[in-house]
């Protein structure tokens, strides 16, 4: 009896989590415009996606920001995790506190605080402000993930290297980095995905002329126009799926 209960609870929760998404994907292939009827399988909404230059622009913009910000966040965050786990320095506790507070902070507070910073500094909201904001919220995730991995190491290995005369950069690049690579890559993947999907913070700090995909989807959804949105969402979901699978494979490497 309990086994049956367990199966039904698990299935119910998964059905809840995936049901709406599956419906969305299925209807992106519906020839009809409204979900009240199914008029046959069709790729026409996907075609109109490709024909929509504004959408493509937004997509390229989002990818650019995601790529650049995730790279910066990963580089900076890996260094940060390294520093935090190996060195004692003034403000270490404060740093940890800031890292965790950013992770816990509601996005909206981050969004408005960054908006205030940029406007007061006289910066025009645009690509650079967006970039800075994205790096800021991705950084803690990278730091925490990499730090967790570094902490699992035998410090004796590193000490041995230094006893043998290795320089600090070598210790980092040639010993520690290869060992933490899976965590770094997983952190990069997470940053990339978070950046691509961010709505709230981007809403406040993006500027004219730099339309990004989530905000474009937001206005498309409010207009409720065509299943083009469904097609777009399906494509993005597939990308996320690929990212999660990639991260999963990487974490399996860690276990090895």
């Amino acid at each position, binding site marked *: 009896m309990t086994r049956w209960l367990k199966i039904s609870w*698990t299935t119910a*929760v*998964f059905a*809840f*989590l*995936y*049901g*709406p*998404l599956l*419906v*969305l994907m299925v*209807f992106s292939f519906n020839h009809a415009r*409204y*979900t*009240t009827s199914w008029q046959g399988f069709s790729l026409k909404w996907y075609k109109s996606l490709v024909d929509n230059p504004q959408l493509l622009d937004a997509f390229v913009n989002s990818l650019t920001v995601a790529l650049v910000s995730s790279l910066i966040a990963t580089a*900076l*965050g890996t*260094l*940060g995790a*390294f*520093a935090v786990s*190996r*060195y004692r320095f003034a403000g270490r506790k404060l*740093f940890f506190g*800031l890292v965790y*507070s*950013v992770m*816990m*902070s*509601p*996005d909206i*507070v981050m969004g*408005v*605080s*960054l908006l*205030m*910073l940029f406007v*007061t500094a006289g910066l025009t909201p645009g690509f650079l402000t967006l970039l*800075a*904001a994205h790096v*800021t919220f991705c*950084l803690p995730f990278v*730091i925490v993930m990499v730090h967790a991995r570094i902490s699992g190491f035998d410090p004796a290995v590193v000490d041995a290297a230094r006893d043998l005369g290795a320089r*600090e950069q070598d210790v980092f690049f040639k010993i520690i980095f290869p060992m933490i690579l899976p965590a770094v890559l997983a952190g990069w993947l997470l940053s990339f*995905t978070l950046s691509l*999907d961010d*709505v709230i913070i981007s*809403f*406040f700090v993006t500027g004219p002329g730099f339309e990004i995909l989530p905000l474009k*989807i*937001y206005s498309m*959804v*409010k207009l409720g126009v065509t299943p083009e*949105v469904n097609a777009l*969402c399906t494509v*993005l*979901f597939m990308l*996320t799926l690929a990212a*999660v699978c990639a991260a*999963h494979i990487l974490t399996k490497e860690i276990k090895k």
Partner: protein
Amino acid sequence: MNERQGFKFIAVFLNMAWFALFVLIPGLMVAGISFMTRDTGRFFSLPFTLAHYRELLDPVYARVLAQSLIYSLNTTILCLMISYPFAWILSRGPRHRRALLLMMVIIPFWTSSLIRTYALVILMKANGIINTLLIGTGIISDPLTLLYTDFAVYVGLVYTLLPFMILPLYAVMEKMDPRLMEAARDLGANGFDVFFRVVLPLSLPGVMAGCIMVFLPAMGLFYVPDLLGGAKTMLMGNFIKNQFLTAMNWPFGSAASVFLLLLMGVMILIYFIVSRHFNRYETL
């Protein structure tokens, strides 16, 4: 020794500088501006005033606050009720299946919540899937009013935030040593006792972490009430967005943001107290 200092310096400095510039300073600005006066020309100006904090307590705005708190609380409770058994079942399952099931939870976690909210819109519209199915099979004749209601907002919030509760719970439960429960049973405890006196206390840090990760965002997620809520659903997120981007009342919006930050501080404090208290039982 010198390059050690050099490398260390760069690594530490870059990070500290970034956080100082983009986290600490903006945070202080929010706090500072919340004490300033509204100025439609320059966004904010002196003199310093407590007026905006007093305004927060004004019945009009206190109502938004209270409403948001209630929504967040209910959402958190719902998520907890759904996730706790789910995380438990997942963590006790056979090892090989655990990885796959966990991945299936992470996928929605990584999927854009906007996309997931939109999926709900499609389901709940008057001419959406649910109504089409119910009317088509003759169960009802008039479409149900699902969209633009409080119910829709709850569904949206729970749907968006469920993975955020599942994951911390799972993380804590997976680490639980089954020998602890075996030992309790050997000592004569029944299932009830095992749960309330062993499992529950051990899982409390996970519960607290999950609650923080659901409660706080639920207050700031403005697009869920925007897309799913009706005319009267204004939560803190919408309110703050309004103050900054429509009403142009930065000090007031900042005061509300400070309130959110204080709330966050309180919850993190509780988390630390709870996890320190229960950590004693962790390692045996």
